[in-house]
Structure formats: structure tokens, C-alpha cells
């Protein structure tokens, strides 16, 4: 049986990046949260902030570890599976990715060591500084990688000579047309992800009556964030959509499920897009609404998918449905923010109830939204690696055979299955183990008593878990 190396490489890349994407999106938000907690503790001396910081640093360490290892795989994927693409775009992508390594990865890695292991070895101000540097590193990293990714969507500042991209303006190439929207959208997504995870865990702890003082603070902070950021994200997403209409009209058309360019396009709530039929087999929509949203005129013109030839069309149903999943979850998040506000105004925010039971379930929501949004934007680019310039089949590694790609795909799946189920399990154990009760806390560095059991032994047997209420297992 013949396997298609292009198709398998696409599946492999989608698989690897889907796993990878959810970790940075979580750790970017969480790194800033830890830095904020460290600052609050530094400023107020309130031990509640230290409790929160210690706990969330532990979660951060596990998530970051998984993000790092999957990130290393990513950085070699370009060369192993897409070597022609790498060769053609190296003049731009090479320097950008190198800048990411030297300005962000080293910063994160070096200061992460101090953040995780240096609490008792450096002065508290230095420890706070390390937390801030790790957080800064995550933003710098996001900036470069999104610049690279955005350039592949909306290439700018280059000319092509002998099949190679040559940069003519670094400013135009780095700050390419979709970067501002993509970067803002991603950063806000990271903050929302962090907020939902922390809010979910805090609500669960409040239900259990664990570390009530600290977790009230955490829940309250996160709900403020969600209240303001969830609607802001909708607005940013809307601007991003307008940018997509301008630069990647076919992708936008697929998001809307709109096949023919038309004035007064409906907003489709449900549809079954079919490439074979070059139209929707079934659709339910609100007349004119897509035109109003996208052009602010009831009879504004919305581009159609069939502006592109069938061979250059993205997979319409994937783009259509993943987009709806992302937007749907976005509205759900706005709802959660408003519900939290209502509870707060009624002074019922900390009273265990249905809201506290729902919040832990909502932890999944931002991750699903991120992966769905990622599928929307990346599938919408098909069949292009660099939009309109380099297609999948042009970018593939010439020597790559179907069975080689399949072997490594199965290999990565097996490795990831082990690693991520174990990682998920240990994250769960960290959360179940709870926060540490009495935090040894002296102002002088080095004066902290050593805590031989805090990490050396299994979580369940470590002292910090003991003070929890009985119903933990």
C-alpha cells in the first residue's frame, strides 16, 4: 500500500502542534500569574500569596516541562518533513526562529531553574525577578513564533529569486499584516486559559473547604480577568476576522460557509459544506447578518470559497465547524464572566454552589477553543504553507517516503500517549495533593528550613497534603 508523505506529514504536524500549542497557551498565562503572585507577596507579605505562588509554580513546572519537550520536536519538524519549504524560506524564518531562541528560550530556561529551585537560595527580590523574567520570556517567545506564523499567512517584505525568499524589509516582514491581530488574540487567549484553570481549581478547593482564604483571592482575581477579557477577546477576534477577509478571503469564506461571492450574505448557524457539490448541502442562517458583521452594511459583499479553484480551496467543513466551536466557547466564557459578576454583586461568590461545581468543568473550555481556533486558521490556509506562494506538495522533503513519515507519526503518537497521559495524571495528583499549609517564610535568604519531603517523596505521603479534609480520594 502506498502512503502519501504529504498527507501523513500534514497529519503529523497537526498532531504535534496541537499537543504543543495547549501548553504554551497555558504557561504564558500562568507565568504571568505566578509573577503577579510573587509581586503581591513581596509587597504585602501576606502568606496567602506565597501559598498560591508555591502551588501554581509546581503546576507550571509540569506543564512547562511538557511544553519544552514537545517544542523541541516542533523545531526539528520543519527540517525533517518540510525541507524544501525550510530551504526556500530560511532567509526569513531562520533568523526569526534564532531570535526566539536567543531572546526567549534561554531567558525562560535559565530563570526557570532559579524560580523552581532557588526559592531558598536567592533573596526574595531576586526570586521575584526570576519569576518576571520567565513571564517576559514567554511573551517574547510568543511574539517571534507568531511573527513567523503570521508571515506564512500574510507574507510581506520579501522578493523571490531563484526559488528562494529574500527579505527586502525586515520591518514589513516581521510586523506583517496579520501579526498584531494574531499576537493580541493569542496573548488574550493565554490569559483566559490561565484564568479558567486557576478559577476552576480554586472553585473546587473552595467546595472542599481547602485553603479558603487563598483560594477566595484566586477565584476573585480570575473572575475579574474573565469578565473583562472574554468580551475583549470577541472584539479582537472580530478585527482579526476583518484582517483575514482582506488578506485571506478564501479562508474567511470557508469560516462563513459562503461559496458564492454575494451581497447580503447570511450568517450561517448550521451548514454542511461540501467540496464536491461546491456548496452547502444544508444550511440554516440569519439573513444579511454575515454582511453586517463583516462589512457593517446589510448588503455588503462577502467573498465566496469558489473564488479559488477547487484544488486551492481549504477543507471547508473543518474550517466552518472549528470556527463555530471557538466562537461558541467564546460566548460561553462571556456568560461565565457575567454570571460571576452577578454572584459577586449579590455577595454569593464564595458560597459553594452550582457555579463552583461548574467552574472545574470549564477548565477544558479554553483548551478546546485554542485548538479549534488553531485548526480554523491553519486548515484555512490549505493548500498553502506560505499563503499563495508555497504549497504543501512543493514544501515536502523530497527524500521522504510515505512509510518513513508513517513510522515517525506512529512513533510520536506512541511517545506522546505515554508522556501526556502520565503528565495529565501527575498534574491531577499535584492538584489533588492540594496547597501547602504552613509555608516556611523568612525574609532572609538561605534561612529557610530544608523541606526534605516536599518533592523527594510521593505527593500523597508528603506532609503538605495531610491537612486536607477527608474526602480527597
Amino acid at each position, binding site marked *: 500500500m502506498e502512503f502519501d508523505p504529504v498527507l501523513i506529514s500534514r497529519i503529523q504536524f497537526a498532531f504535534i502542534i496541537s499537543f504543543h500549542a495547549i501548553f504554551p497557551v497555558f504557561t504564558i498565562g500562568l507565568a504571568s500569574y505566578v509573577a503577579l503572585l510573587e509581586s503581591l507577596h513581596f509587597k504585602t507579605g501576606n502568606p496567602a500569596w506565597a501559598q498560591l505562588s508555591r502551588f501554581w509554580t509546581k503546576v507550571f513546572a509540569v506543564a512547562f516541562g511538557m511544553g519544552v519537550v514537545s517544542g523541541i520536536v516542533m523545531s526539528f519538524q520543519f527540517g525533517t518533513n518540510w525541507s524544501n519549504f525550510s530551504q526556500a524560506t530560511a532567509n526569513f524564518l531562520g533568523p526569526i526562529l534564532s531570535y526566539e531562541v536567543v531572546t526567549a*528560550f534561554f531567558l525562560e530556561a535559565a530563570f526557570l531553574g532559579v524560580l523552581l529551585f532557588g526559592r531558598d537560595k536567592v533573596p526574595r527580590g531576586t526570586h521575584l525577578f526570576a519569576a518576571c523574567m520567565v513571564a517576559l520570556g514567554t511573551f517574547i517567545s510568543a511574539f517571534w513564533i507568531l511573527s513567523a506564523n503570521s508571515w506564512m499567512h500574510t507574507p510581506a517584505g520579501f522578493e523571490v529569486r531563484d526559488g528562494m525568499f529574500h527579505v527586502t524589509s525586515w520591518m514589513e516582514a516581521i510586523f506583517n499584516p496579520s501579526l498584531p491581530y494574531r499576537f493580541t488574540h493569542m496573548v488574550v487567549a493565554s490569559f483566559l486559559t490561565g484564568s479558567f484553570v486557576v478559577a476552576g481549581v480554586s472553585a473546587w478547593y473552595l467546595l472542599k473547604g481547602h485553603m479558603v482564604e487563598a483560594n477566595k483571592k484566586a477565584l476573585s482575581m480570575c473572575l475579574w480577568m474573565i469578565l473583562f477579557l472574554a468580551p475583549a477577546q470577541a472584539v479582537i477576534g472580530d478585527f482579526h476576522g476583518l484582517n483575514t477577509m482582506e488578506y485571506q478571503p478564501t479562508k474567511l469564506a470557508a469560516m462563513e460557509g459562503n461559496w458564492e461571492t454575494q451581497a447580503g450574505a447570511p450568517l450561517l448557524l448550521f451548514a454542511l459544506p461540501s467540496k464536491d457539490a461546491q456548496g452547502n448541502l444544508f444550511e440554516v442562517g440569519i439573513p444579511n447578518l454575515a454582511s453586517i458583521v463583516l462589512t457593517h452594511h446589510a448588503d455588503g459583499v462577502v467573498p465566496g470559497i469558489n473564488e479559488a479553484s477547487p484544488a486551492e480551496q481549504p477543507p471547508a467543513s473543518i474550517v466552518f465547524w472549528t470556527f463555530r466551536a471557538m466562537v461558541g466557547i467564546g460566548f460561553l466564557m462571556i456568560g461565565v464572566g457575567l454570571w460571576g459578576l452577578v454572584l459577586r454583586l449579590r455577595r454569593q461568590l464564595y458560597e459553594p454552589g452550582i457555579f463552583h461545581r461548574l467552574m472545574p468543568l470549564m477548565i477544558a473550555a479554553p483548551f478546546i477553543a485554542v485548538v479549534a481556533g488553531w485548526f480554523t486558521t491553519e486548515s484555512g490556509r490549505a493548500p498553502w504553507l506560505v499563503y499563495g506562494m508555497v504549497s504543501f506538495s512543493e514544501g515536502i522533503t523530497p527524500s521522504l517516503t510515505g512509510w518513513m513519515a508513517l513510522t515517525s507519526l506512529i512513533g510520536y503518537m506512541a511517545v506522546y500517549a505515554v508522556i501526556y497521559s502520565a503528565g495529565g495524571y501527575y498534574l491531577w495528583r499535584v492538584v489533588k495533593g492540594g496547597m501547602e499549609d504552613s509555608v516556611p517564610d523568612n525574609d532572609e535568604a538561605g534561612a529557610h528550613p530544608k523541606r526534605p519531603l516536599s518533592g523527594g517523596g510521593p505527593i500523597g505521603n508528603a506532609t503538605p497534603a495531610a491537612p486536607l479534609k477527608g474526602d480527597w480520594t
Partner: protein
Amino acid sequence: MIDFTMIWAAIIAFGVIMYVLMDGFDLGVGILYPFAPDEESRDVMMNSVAPFWDGNETWLVLGGAGLLGAFPLVYSVLLPALYLGVFVLLAGLIFRGVAFEFRFKASRERKGYWSAAFCIGSGVAALAQGIVVGSYIQGYQTENMVYTGGAFDWLTPFTLVTGVGLLVGYALLGSTWLIMKTEGAVQDWAYRMAPRLLAGLLGVFLIISFWTPLVDEFVRDRWFSNLFVIWLLPAGAMGCAYLVMRAVRRRDEGVPFVATMGLFIFTYLGLLASKWPYVVPPDYTLYDAASAPESQAFLLVGVLFVIPVVLAYTAWTYWVFRGKVRVGDGYH
């Protein structure tokens, strides 16, 4: 006119040796895991490298990204040529990378699995890197700047020997690192391991030194031409090996590690001298593989400013965690 290509060759060469020396010792610690006296020693061993491994490994990522930025041809020929080997290398790095977090979070019964993952992952990664070195000496089959060889060209008896050579070399780096960073039972054990590993490494060196000129005509001509000065490099390596041996016998604590690094540096320079100026042997030189001058220049500006800063705060973190790692030292 500044020769950016030559500057970049120096920067990449520097990045690679930084990776080898730094990730070398923490991979070596993993390789030595099964021979450790007891579980408590393994905790100490892992804690001695835990604050550093992530930064060490970042040099590998810099190597990959830097090649794409400055010598894209190397990136786009070597990675396809080593396709399945790269997968094995990455799988090894994944398992040992997560083991740092997971091993301390596992229950007592499961801890052994993550010790095994750390050890096997480190060993596999080291072996795979040694195989890359061997494949580089062998050369790659290319046409029009594209790899045209088979999926297993990298797997030969010769590359297996270079693989084992690097595996043993990393273990030696790991043992001398432990001599410096530990005390008591772990240190005594490391003192016993180091000379054996050194003997093993010299044995592999001897085999490779005889074999390489047979494998490759170019290398033979390079070493037996009138360029006698390059014989200083193996002489330097032997000098360092002697220093390691003497320092271990005297129970010096820092010298064995430093001398082992010297051994690596001389060997590495010897390797570079063997193939210079070819980066994708046997067909392409540095200049064939270079990216556009404006790209090399753009990246150079940043790197010249940023790398010293990176080195400074990296050195600072090593200073923060200076001194001996003790049994029962707190994890984060």
C-alpha cells in the same frame, strides 16, 4: 567587506560545542543511572543537574535554528538524511526531559520507571548524537542541494562506533561533574567510575582514529598532508586525558571535569579540521550552504548583543547553585 559566512561558521561551531559540553554532562548523569549505588544517590544525581538541564538543551535548539538562519542547506540536507535517527534522538530527549518532573512526583513503585526513562532516554540521545557525528564523517548523498540517499544510510558499523564513543564520553563528563558537585558515597562511586570510562573512551578513540582514514579519503589526505600543525589537536586531547587520570588519582574535585571538557574541545577541533571547509560533505562547503548575506547580517546584529547577555545570566545561575548537592536537598 565582512565575511559573514566565516563569522557564522565560528558562531555555530561555538554553539555546537556549548551544547556538547553542557548537555553532555547532564546526559552523562542519566547514562550513569543504572550503576549508581542506590536510589538516594540517584536523587542527588538528578538534583545536581535539575536547575540546568533545560538551559543546556536550549543550545541544541539554537543549533537547529541557527543552522536554518545561517546555513539552511545543512539543515535541509542533514535532517532528511537522518530522518529516522532524528526521531529516535527526539524521543530520547522527550523521555529524559519529562523524567525530571515526573520522577519526583511518582509514587515509590513507579519511580523506577522514570529512572529508566531518564537513563534510556539519555543513552539513546547520546548514541544518536554520536551517530550524527559518524554520518557527518561518512558524508551524505545529494543532488541539486537535496538529499537523495536512503532512510538508513546513517546506520553503519562505523557510525555505531562513533555513537558508542559519544555515549562513553558523555558518561565520563557526567562522572567528573558528579565528582565536582557531590560528596560522600556518590562522589566515591564517581571517582571509581571516571578512570574506567576514560579507558573505554580512549579505546573507542583508537578504533575511530584508525578507521576514519580508511572510511574517508579526504580525511586521510588532510591528516597526512604537510599540515603537521593539526597533530597538536590529538596531542592536546591526550594531554587532557592524562590530566583527568592524574586528577582523579589525587582526588582533585574540579580538575577532572575541566580536563574532560578540554578533551572534548580538542577532539571537536580535530573533527572540524578533518572536514574543513565542508559542511555537507562531500559536496558542499560553508559558502555553498550559506543563507543570504542580508539574513546573516540581520541575525548577527542580535546575536552579538544577546549571546554575551545569555552567557552572563547562564553563568549567574550556575553560581546561584554552586557548591555540593546533598542528600535530602529540597526539590522545588
